[in-house]
């Protein structure tokens, strides 16, 4: 079962509908037991970083998510604000601590010529083959974005893809069982469905060390 984590941050219906259409058994829930019993997790979200962390905290979900993701290594797909929350900290209307599962900071776009938010379809540039990008045509890697903040990281190993908007920014991260996309696969027509299908079939390889 895939549990879509409901923590009061935005539109969960599209993610649910997309996974459902692809044949997954999906549940949308904010209950710790539904998160603990899931085979896979989706952490969606739109809205503000600080409020999102507050909502996770108030629902008592942070320790549950830490247990599932960091210890049980359950595959998780974090989308948009969800991906930003993976970072250590965010600067949206203040300074807030994130989940800290990957190295990084979330900052506002610094652009002079281009409008913010970054809204629309943009091409992603893959850094390396990643399991969730399998089957994407090299001629068409457009995904739908809508955001004003983006992740910055000095850990090159986790950057799965970047996109160009005034400058190159990180639009997908991958670390062990954690995959995050700044873009919205559930809003990206066929490319998005390909990525979600890959997520459903993703077998995480145990880390070698």
């Amino acid at each position, binding site marked *: 079962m895939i549990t879509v984590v409901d923590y009061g941050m*935005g539109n969960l219906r599209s993610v649910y509908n997309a996974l459902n259409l692809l044949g997954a058994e999906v549940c949308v829930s904010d209950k710790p037991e539904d998160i603990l019993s899931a085979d896979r997790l989706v952490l969606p979200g739109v809205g503000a970083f600080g409020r999102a962390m507050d909502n996770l905290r108030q629902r008592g979900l942070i320790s549950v998510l830490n247990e599932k993701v960091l210890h049980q290594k359950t595959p998780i797909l974090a989308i948009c604000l969800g991906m930003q929350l993976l970072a250590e900290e965010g600067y949206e209307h203040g300074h807030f601590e994130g989940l800290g599962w990957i190295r990084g900071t979330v900052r506002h776009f610094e652009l002079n010529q281009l409008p*913010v938010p970054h809204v629309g379809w943009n091409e992603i540039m893959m850094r390396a083959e990643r399991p969730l990008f399998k089957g994407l045509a090299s001629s068409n890697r*457009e995904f739908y974005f*809508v955001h004003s903040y983006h992740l910055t990281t000095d850990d090159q190993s986790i950057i799965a893809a970047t996109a160009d908007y005034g400058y190159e920014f990180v639009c997908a991260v991958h670390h062990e069982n954690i995959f995050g996309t700044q873009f919205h696969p559930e809003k990206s027509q066929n490319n998005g469905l390909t990525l979600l299908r890959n997520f459903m079939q993703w077998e995480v390889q145990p880390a070698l060390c």
Partner: protein
Amino acid sequence: MLKTRLIPILLLKNGRMVKTIQFDKLRDVGHPVKAAMVYDAQNVDELIFLDITATEENRSTFFDVIQQVTEESFMPFTAGGGLRTVDDIRALLNAGADKVTLNTEAVRRPEFITEAADRFGNQCIVVSIDARRVGYKKYEVYINRGREATGLNPAAWAQQAVLHGAGEIMITSIDHEGTMEGFDLELIQQVTSAVAVPVIAHGGAGTPEHFVEAVRDAGAHAVAAASIFHFTDQNPIKARAHMKRAGLDVRR
């Protein structure tokens, strides 16, 4: 790079798709869910649903349409029409919309924009501005679907709306709407040069070249249209191909 968006608009009344000319002369143009499915098959960049249903009882038909479409289509949806409260917005987002448009209530109560942006993020809030030409290069914002003058200048109002938290502006020329004679480039230019958020141009597109003009000559970040797709043999695929040939960066 970011692609220029081409956005079909679906105007709804009592669950049917309609089309107006200069906000008047309403015609029935078919079933919105079927139309949305066709647009989805054509890989459109986004769809905007605007509801002009007058009575509250019939408003549920609008939600039904959004829900039906979002169950099977996985693309960005913007929806609006008559939104007055944060709860109205939440209901549309829960029905599957990604962004909402605010118009009349935003003018009456600009703090509504802020309430909405604080709650849902400003990337979710599109302020839609309807304007009429009132003199040489002079425009005035109208609300209540073109029935009520406000005394506001569209570019100045767009700036205010952004300060209050709008993440995007849609500018519609009432004079050009439905005429298919081209966008009001002067109006669009005034708004695009006034704000630092994306601007969607709407009202008057009748040929794909009109889309090119709105982007190249007036600085629009996205172009929206309805009549050209209802009443000509144009479709979004052909229109995008034309825009690409004209040198615009659009989706394949």
